[in-house]
């Protein structure tokens, strides 16, 4: 192994550590690299295999998708599956429920994202920048709510919402979903990283608290806000339990609940079920591909790196 202990200070600086890999290595290095690539490929097959099979399965005929032995590429390509699932389950007027399900998912996701962007950034700003009595207590209380299992709150949530006749409405999901402790926490951590001099400068120039928030801090927080929007949109788009409990008519279901229902009815037409699943998954994959750097960064805002 090439070492740097015998070189002088100056040459040490001139030779970056990475340069070591261009020197001819011991055989062990190449063995390791082969192992690494083998693991890489094997893991990709294991982790992504089911999803690739599902995508291919969504183009197969009904008999082929359930055949033994299973095939990889479809022998006959049947993109009609996607049209089939779009028109599945006609209601009384002959309109299909499937597009309605997608619309419901979109409405719920968009509304909750907008509300959370507003409320969570205000609260995060307050925790990061403003001083009010009992602030530490409120902050700790907020963190503690992140540990409560969702199912525990589902029963009282249902009772409370049914008493105000909000069950089976969009409001049943939007109102409780308007704030998120995790998002407030993430934003407050991010706001803390913005230098306080900016606040002071704004104050000297005569800006009020809200103006400082709206005009100075918020624009600087764009990456964190984008992360919030993406994570929250994904969370609501993929939600299941809350919608299952609080919505109970076919026309109000979001796509996830609809798909589960679909499988109950049309389980023998798994190619159609898989095609329907793609409507739920592909948008999220595309979103992730375009904005990928914002997803992993979200974890670092919460101080994961310790």
């Amino acid at each position, binding site marked *: *192994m090439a070492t*740097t202990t015998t070189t002088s200070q100056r040459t040490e600086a001139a030779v970056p*550590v990475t340069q070591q*890999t261009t020197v001819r290595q011991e055989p062990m290095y190449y063995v390791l690299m082969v192992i*690494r*690539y083998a*693991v890489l490929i094997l*893991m990709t097959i294991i*982790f992504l*295999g*089911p999803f690739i*099979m599902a995508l291919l399965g969504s183009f197969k005929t009904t008999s082929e998708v359930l*055949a033994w032995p*299973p095939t990889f590429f479809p022998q006959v390509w049947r993109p009609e599956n996607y049209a089939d699932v779009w028109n599945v389950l006609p209601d009384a007027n002959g309109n299909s429920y499937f597009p309605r399900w997608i619309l419901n998912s979109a409405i719920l996701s968009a509304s909750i994202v907008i509300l959370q962007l507003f409320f*969570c950034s*205000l*609260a995060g*700003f*307050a*925790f990061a920048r403003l*001083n*009010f009595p009992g*602030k530490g207590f*409120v902050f700790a209380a*907020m963190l503690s*709510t992140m*540990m409560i*299992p969702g*199912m525990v*709150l*589902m*029963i*009282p949530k*249902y009772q*409370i919402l049914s008493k105000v006749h909000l069950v089976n409405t969009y409001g049943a999901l939007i109102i*409780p979903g308007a704030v998120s*402790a995790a998002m*407030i*926490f993430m934003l407050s*951590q991010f706001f803390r990283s913005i230098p306080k001099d900016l606040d*002071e400068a704004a104050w*000297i120039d005569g800006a*009020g608290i809200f103006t400082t928030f709206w005009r100075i801090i918020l624009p600087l927080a764009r990456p964190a806000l984008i992360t919030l929007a993406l994570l929250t949109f*994904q969370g609501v*788009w993929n939600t*299941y*339990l809350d919608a299952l409990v609080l919505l109970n008519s076919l026309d109000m279901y979001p796509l*996830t609940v609809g*798909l*589960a229902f679909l*499988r109950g009815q049309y389980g023998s037409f*798994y190619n159609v079920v898989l095609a329907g*699943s793609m409507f739920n*998954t592909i948008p*999220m*994959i595309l979103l*992730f591909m375009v904005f990928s750097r914002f997803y992993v960064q979200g*974890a670092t805002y919460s101080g*994961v*790196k310790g």
Partner: protein
Amino acid sequence: MAAEARSAPAPKTSGMNRKTLEALTGYLYVSPWIILSIIFTFGAMLYVLYLSFTDLKLLNTPQLIGFDNYVRVLTPFAWPWETWVHPEKSFFWNAVWNTVIYAAVVTFCQTWLALILAVILNAKLIGKQFFRIGWYIPSVTSSVVISLIFIWIFQKEGVLNYTLVTLFGWAGFQPIGWLTDAAAHSALPALMLLNISTTAPTFMLYFLAALQDVPEEIYEAASLDGCVGVQRFFKITVPMLRPIIFLVVVLGTIGTLQIFDQAYIMTAGGPLHQTETINYLIYTSAFTNFDMAYASAMAFVLFVLIFSLFLVQNRMLGGSNTGQ
């Protein structure tokens, strides 16, 4: 400078000083969260606790009945046939067993798998960016879609059986009905496999990101002291990653203890209660059997379980909690 700034006329304070204005504004900004959490979190917790001491089914007026629900939840069966003779006796302990085993195995496996993979792949490799995006796909997929896909994969005529028969058929491997065969007790392991393979990649990416932050000098210094390979992994890498390992374990535990979607969609708690988890039991008691008070008691026991586990893990692993 600061003193001058403070004595300059403050805008729009209408007579209040800055400190009071700040306090009021602070509370105003936090008020949406305060109001919503008083209703839907803290109030809800108290309401669940209250309900657990009543006899609420769905629409009746709840009457207080003391600890009856808790007795029913916590009393185990004496004999298996009691489930049919006394159906009101709970499957709670069965569910606790299923859930705890599931959580322990999945958390352990997914954490180690993610860690080891991250260490193996922490090198200059071509196409790393492509893999990083690809491996994240399971975690942007909804649990419903994952359940639907894996129902199909786990079929007796499904891809998993085909792969295993191809690989191990010579040893006499026969296709298993993973989710349907009660005698094989394969349903819960199938769910474990599903979860490990869909959450390990995400955690692996967390670990990979954290590994980038480990300074190269530490590894150099260690190799000068003769510490390489496996020893380096345990003595250097793992301690340096302690905060994020703690986070992954805690997230994993809290998440796996609450498994519901897969148990509900894929197996409906079956076959023969083998995949009934605590959350599944709470849901069906409350929203299928309309036995809300009984479900509330179970829910509260679950809350105590998760909370105490969190405290234990905090004590044992570490205290590098999120936040500063």
